[in-house]
């Protein structure tokens, strides 16, 4: 198997856009091509993450659309859909394609546009990522899914709403340092704690926003990447799934797919949680960050809330989590999120993250979760 590196990254501003998701991706992809200092025609395949295109944009067959907008009709291309993990799943498959020697240079990314539809419609479309028969019929929303997890975590470990609020405050503080973040405003604990309940015990400020945006990364085989001074190596990319049914999950306070994907990634990379300097993880809700920091092995099960409260996951903490502002403040264009997280870690490992730079970061971890915790992809990236 060949080594694989990221040689270019691009991310649009996150927030409201008047452009289609494929256009947003194409803008990010152009930035990634320029960043990689390659010609567009060097790209041999394109893998594209998108979730709600059919519902929100009346657009399927997005792979060739994305390629066409990029001016690259002719490359093999496929849309990946694994709910919010879509473009990270695309990333993993591109890594395997290059490692296997099928392609030398592959473009991966995603785009999502949702802010032009009413909130109740967006909530409905996102809920399509849970089971249609057992869950959608009950009116279970995504805040509802994570509320069930939050309640279980609170009951089992004594995690508090205030500890969850600390995650939001921290990620907003980080997001204020990110010029491309959707929300660049620091908030206090009271703002979170006094916000209205969306799905008890989760409140408005425990939830990430709806977001339009695009992200892209260029992956290359070792012999191409070696010519790139700023190449960042893919040390591992591992995926796991868990039962699609909330009723079949053995322990609601844990995300077993995170634990399995992380164990696989650490094994593949020959690294441990102690080797990780910076993390971008899937904080679609504050409780999701707490549970992820446990499942990724940074903190013992049940202590993720304490870690958030103590500031151990802040930029200056033991293990900086979501320096970009995370999904919470940077925003969450669901099909683009995985690629955007990879782009942030690459930027951090190159030392180019400006005010939100984690000093000396050499090894980074990316964790992306799909839907009702049924898909997780974890990748480890490193400098030479």
């Amino acid at each position, binding site marked *: 198997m060949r080594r694989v590196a990221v040689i270019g990254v691009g991310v649009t501003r996150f927030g409201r856009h008047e452009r289609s998701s494929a256009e947003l991706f194409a803008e990010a992809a152009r930035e990634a091509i320029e960043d990689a200092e390659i010609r567009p025609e060097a790209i041999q395949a394109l893998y594209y993450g998108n979730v709600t295109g059919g519902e929100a944009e009346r657009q399927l067959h997005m792979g060739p659309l994305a390629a066409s907008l990029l001016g690259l009709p002719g490359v093999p291309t496929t849309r990946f859909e694994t709910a919010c993990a879509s473009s990270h799943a695309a990333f993993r498959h591109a890594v395997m394609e290059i490692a296997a020697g099928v392609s030398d240079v592959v473009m991966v990314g995603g785009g999502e546009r949702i802010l032009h539809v009413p909130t109740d419609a967006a909530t409905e479309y996102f809920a399509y990522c849970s089971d249609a028969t057992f869950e959608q019929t*009950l009116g279970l929303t995504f805040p509802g899914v994570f509320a069930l997890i939050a309640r279980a975590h609170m009951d089992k470990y004594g995690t508090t709403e205030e500890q969850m609020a600390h995650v939001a405050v921290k990620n907003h503080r980080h997001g204020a340092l990110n010029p491309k973040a959707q929300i660049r405003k620091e908030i206090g604990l009271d703002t979170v704690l006094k916000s209205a309940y*969306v799905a008890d015990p989760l409140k408005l400020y425990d939830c990430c926003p709806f977001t339009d945006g695009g992200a892209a990364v260029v992956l290359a085989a070792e012999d191409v990447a070696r010519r790139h001074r700023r190449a960042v190596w893919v040390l591992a990319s591992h995926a796991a799934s868990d039962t699609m049914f909330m009723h079949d999950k053995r322990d609601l306070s844990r995300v077993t797919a995170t634990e399995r994907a992380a164990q696989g990634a650490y094994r593949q990379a020959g690294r441990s949680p102690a080797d990780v300097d910076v993390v971008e993880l899937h904080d679609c809700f504050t409780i999701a960050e707490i549970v992820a920091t446990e499942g990724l092995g940074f903190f013992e099960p049940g202590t993720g809330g304490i870690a958030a409260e103590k500031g151990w996951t802040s930029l200056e903490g033991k293990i900086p989590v979501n320096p970009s502002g995370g999904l919470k403040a940077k925003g969450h264009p669901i099909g683009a999120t995985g690629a955007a997280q990879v782009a942030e870690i690459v930027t951090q490992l190159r030392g180019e993250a400006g005010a939100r730079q984690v000093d000396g970061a050499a090894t980074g971890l990316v964790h992306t979760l799909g839907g009702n915790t049924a898909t997780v992809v974890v990748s480890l990236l490193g400098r030479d």
Partner: protein
Amino acid sequence: MTDEVITLGHFFAEARAGRLTAIRCRQCRELAIPPKEYCPGCHERDWEPAPLRGTGTIASYTVIRVPPRGQPAGTPYAVAVVRLDEGVSLLGRVVDLPVDAVKTGLLVRFLPLVDGQQTAIGFTPA
């Protein structure tokens, strides 16, 4: 027997008539909610129907205050994971109880929620 009882259609037809019917693996005795082809425990395909009493306790719950489009019932409403007495769990809408009274550990009983062609899982205080 295996072919019919493992289907979603059979599970919800039974539920509509007020009966919760799980499936039990004849090989390893794993109890499961359909639909499943192979047993998640031993990966054999040898199921028998396993009628459930329909009673259990709330393991986790939430009160949905921002609903998706197209929910007929008014908000807020409670959705709970119920650990059934036999050991499997089911997600259901909690009805006949103010949302503020829903609590972890509450004893509940299955109740089909029938709306036209659709059947959903409900639970009412036991």
